């Protein structure tokens, strides 16, 4: 089973994301900010990170930089999931090592499409 780390300071968003990702057969862990997410990644890297941008303590962009420098840190697929929906932010995320980018609000179809795009799930996987 593939693993996905959901990083978002909103417990509601984490809960919605968890339900969608479990439907896509991911084992889900959660973190409420970049710093806690980094601690989790230092113990074991997930296959995927669904990553909010603006969070207290450490934001998503800074977290991604630290995670990418961990041994094996280039492996996880990072999918940003944020209300930052302008070209400047998207470009910054991609040049900083993000694999995909979701502009909130999102739904299960968008998550499934974006995860399929980076090869985390097969194309056209049926949602349960």
């Amino acid at each position, binding site marked *: 089973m593939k693993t996905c780390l959901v990083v978002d300071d909103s417990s509601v968003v984490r809960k919605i994301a968890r339900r969608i990702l479990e439907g896509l057969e991911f084992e889900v862990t959660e973190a409420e900010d970049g710093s806690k997410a980094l601690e989790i990644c230092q113990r074991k890297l997930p296959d995927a990170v669904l990553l909010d941008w603006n969070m207290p303590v450490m934001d998503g962009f800074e977290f991604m930089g630290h995670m990418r420098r961990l041994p094996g840190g280039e492996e996880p697929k990072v999918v940003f999931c944020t209300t930052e*929906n*302008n*070209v400047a932010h*998207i*470009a910054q995320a*991609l040049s900083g090592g993000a694999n*995909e*980018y*979701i*502009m909130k609000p*999102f739904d299960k*179809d*968008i998550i499934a*499409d*974006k995860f*399929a*795009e980076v090869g985390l799930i097969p*194309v*056209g996987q049926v949602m349960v």
Partner: protein
Amino acid sequence: MTATEYEYLRKFLRDHSGLDLSADKQYLIESRLLPLARKGGLSGIGELVQKLQGAGASALVTSVVEAMTTNETFFFRDKVPFDHFRDTIMPEVIKARAGRRSVRIWCAAGSTGQEPYSLAMSLKEMGAALTGWRVEIIATDLSQEVLEKAKAGIYSQFEVQRGLPIQMLMKYFRQTGETWQINPELRAMIQHRQLNLLHDFAQLGTFDVIFCRNVLIYFDQDTKINIFNRLARQIEGDGFLVLGAAETVVGLTDTFKPIPERRGLYKPNDPRAAAAKPAFAGAAPRVAVMAGR
């Protein structure tokens, strides 16, 4: 909705659009036509049916047909056909048309533009292989409303996140507020035309590639056969037909044959018949010459 109303709408849609609903599609009618009825100040499906039966309902007839025949669509829908387009179809076309360096593509159910624009982006991604080629994409749809949206090439944030890789969004779209518009260069590659597949489409000319996905499923068997036979006359002998994942020609017509290992991809069966047709010169077609990078 009463059984009589449902039967009336089934027959109505069959007569006006060829749409062939099975006996259990009440939910589809309600989900598509209730919003339309409400928009027109009607109480529900019953009143809508009464209006359709009355005199002077031609605008309403068009709206009902459009509401029922508009399909869900998104960029690079099903992905596999676009992989086939890039890896199988275009390499063969580039080889076969190296002399005249032109390619004509028809999206026969172009809808709100995601499919033709996906093809345009795929062609752009091929870069130097098509530099100097004349590329013509004709996108047709039954619905004028849908065509207007396709022409504008403006999509909501939600729409650009369905099937479209983020790199392609960055490369080929311009953000304006909450919406995203596809670049003028790509819009110029596509010619949009209203067309009902039930009517004659010989005037469109001959194509190297025809995408006709997820539209024939709505037609009855005889209509499907009729359309396949007429599509066969509009395709080059060495051209390609692309159908939706749930569609096939098998058991319906021998004018096309499936390409092994390439799901959804078909070739005309009798190249000699197709080759005998005169070459078509379109009436002032919009032709985009691919620029180098």
